[in-house]
């Protein structure tokens, strides 16, 4: 504020006139540079009656920090352009500059909802590079903990889905379930979220008494609890009517778009890496690959229901793991410093969100020469633009949530 007596003072931060001029923190929907590609030019030119609506980058229901520019005509979404990179940490570059053991903790926070799977694929790729045989007990422990985390991830998805559609209660029940599972895993890994548990050649710690007693406790009512969770939403008329017929994806498009996991199975394609390209001890276990969606493909409701079907299958697998768990070592004998022979390896696992893979190149040193991480959510986010055409703005969140992307993995 300038007073008449004094010529000039530094402006105060409270001065509303300054804040009006301040461009920091404001997002222009239209980029301030000429279009770089054909598609960008097409998207950022408006026809009669159209306008842009900026969503994010901190929208609470985008499962992370995502920005989406919507091109709308009234309430209808004509087109949309997701803008990524707000969570980009350059994990692949960090992995190329860390040694093989260190990488397990680098990839952990990629997809923070199911971080054991984020460790699984890199560890499997490194084991291929090193020609290591993993002890059977370690493989069973991996499957057991992995399936527990799949249940927790799918149950959390259920709550998230409802939250994105405006229902507050289910997320509270989801977190009760998730809390029990992460507490259980914390008993053997020491961590609630970023477990850092799998090791090249095995796992970090054996099953202990606390884990087993918590797991027994949970297993005794898991199936019943799952029934109760299904009852929470499946008969809710508002929920069902907002999901049915929205975001329909047919099988051929799903394959061409590179989709995987529950999203492709909800479109009727029975592609599950656990059966399509068996790894670990999955060939020894009995479980079904649930699919949904008829000739017209799967809609948002199918994708939601399919994840509930998978929870029952995971409970089946956990039960078998507990009965078949062999005795023996949990780590292969390996030197402290790993220098795999020069070579290349690709390994993929079925994470709760789909095919999660790692391509590693070794040049004979203790760090990988190149490490590529393939995250399913990255591919699935691409589908949003396809599925959202001519739907309502309010349905954007329903479709996006039904694809279940997690931005931590997408942005790497």
């Amino acid at each position, binding site marked *: 504020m300038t007073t008449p007596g004094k010529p000039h003072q530094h402006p105060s931060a409270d001065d509303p006139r300054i804040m009006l001029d301040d461009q920091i923190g404001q997002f222009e929907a239209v980029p301030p540079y000429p279009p770089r590609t054909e598609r960008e030019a097409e998207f950022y030119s408006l026809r009669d009656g159209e306008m842009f609506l900026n969503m994010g980058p901190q929208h609470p229901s985008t499962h992370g920090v995502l920005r989406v520019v919507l091109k709308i005509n009234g309430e209808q979404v004509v087109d949309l352009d997701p803008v990524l990179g707000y969570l980009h940490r350059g994990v692949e570059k960090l992995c190329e500059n860390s040694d093989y053991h260190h990488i397990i903790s680098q990839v952990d926070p990629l997809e923070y909802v199911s971080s054991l799977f984020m460790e699984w694929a890199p560890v499997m790729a490194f084991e291929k590079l090193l020609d290591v045989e993993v002890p059977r007990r370690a493989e069973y422990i991996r499957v057991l903990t992995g399936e527990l985390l799949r249940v927790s991830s799918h149950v959390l998805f259920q709550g998230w889905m409802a939250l994105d559609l405006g229902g507050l209660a289910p997320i509270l029940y989801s977190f009760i379930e998730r809390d029990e599972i992460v507490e259980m895993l914390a008993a053997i890994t020491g961590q609630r979220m970023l477990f850092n548990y799998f090791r090249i050649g095995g796992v970090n710690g054996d099953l202990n008494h606390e884990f087993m007693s918590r797991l027994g406790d949970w297993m005794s009512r898991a199936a019943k609890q799952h029934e109760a969770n299904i009852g929470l939403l499946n008969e809710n008329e508002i929920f069902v009517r907002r999901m049915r017929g929205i975001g329909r994806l047919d099988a051929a498009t799903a394959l061409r778009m590179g989709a995987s996991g529950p999203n492709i199975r909800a479109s009727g394609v029975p592609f599950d890496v656990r059966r399509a390209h068996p790894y670990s001890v999955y060939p020894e276990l009995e479980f079904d690959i649930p699919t949904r969606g008829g000739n017209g493909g799967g809609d948002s409701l199918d994708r939601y229901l399919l994840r509930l079907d998978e929870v029952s299958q995971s409970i089946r697998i956990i039960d078998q793991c507990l009965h078949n768990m062999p005795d023996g070592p949990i780590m292969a004998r390996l030197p402290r410093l790993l220098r795999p022979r020069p070579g290349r390896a690709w390994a993929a696992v079925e994470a709760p969100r789909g095919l999660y893979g790692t391509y590693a190149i070794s040049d004979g040193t203790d760090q990988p020469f190149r490490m590529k991480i*393939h995250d399913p959510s*990255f591919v699935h986010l691409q589908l949003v633009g396809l599925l959202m055409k001519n739907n309502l703005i309010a349905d954007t969140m329903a479709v996006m949530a039904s694809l279940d992307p997690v931005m931590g993995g997408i942005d790497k």
Partner: protein
Amino acid sequence: MDRALRTRLEARFADSLTGPVRQRHDETEIRIRPADVVEVLRALHDDAGLEFAVLADLCGVDTGTHMQVVYHLWSAETPDWLRVVADGMPREDPRCPSLTGLWPGAEWMEREAYDMFGIVFEGNRDLRRIYMPPDYTSFPLRKDFYLADDAARSPGGGVRHMEQTHAPVQATQGAVRRTAKA
């Protein structure tokens, strides 16, 4: 290792292969010229007995001397993963045909490879940066892009680990600067 797949690939792509078919664990690897990418992958996708329906991954690789694009494919016909390496692109101007005509889902994967390596996918209609900001000029996953706090470049250069993995050529050189060509 699927020996039958190897024979089939050798017979079908005799003209396109630039090296022997390699097999290790549950992976089969073929090498082709970047110019043949669309033709070979279309054949892999469509031919009876091959039918690689799933594009599991697409990634760029900087070998230090040249660029590669690596595709991983899955088919119900074989127990192996198939890796297709499009090899031998010059680092100064890496160009590769786009796969978006065959798998539209490759669009973002190609955008990522472009963002990280500067590989230009001809035919991709949305080839802009995906993670890095639009005014960014370097390609971070190239081998001559060093991390800002890379201990290999620090005085003494010894704190990093027991050995120097990738010795920097010139500490002052930094990242390759290229303007984005759409």
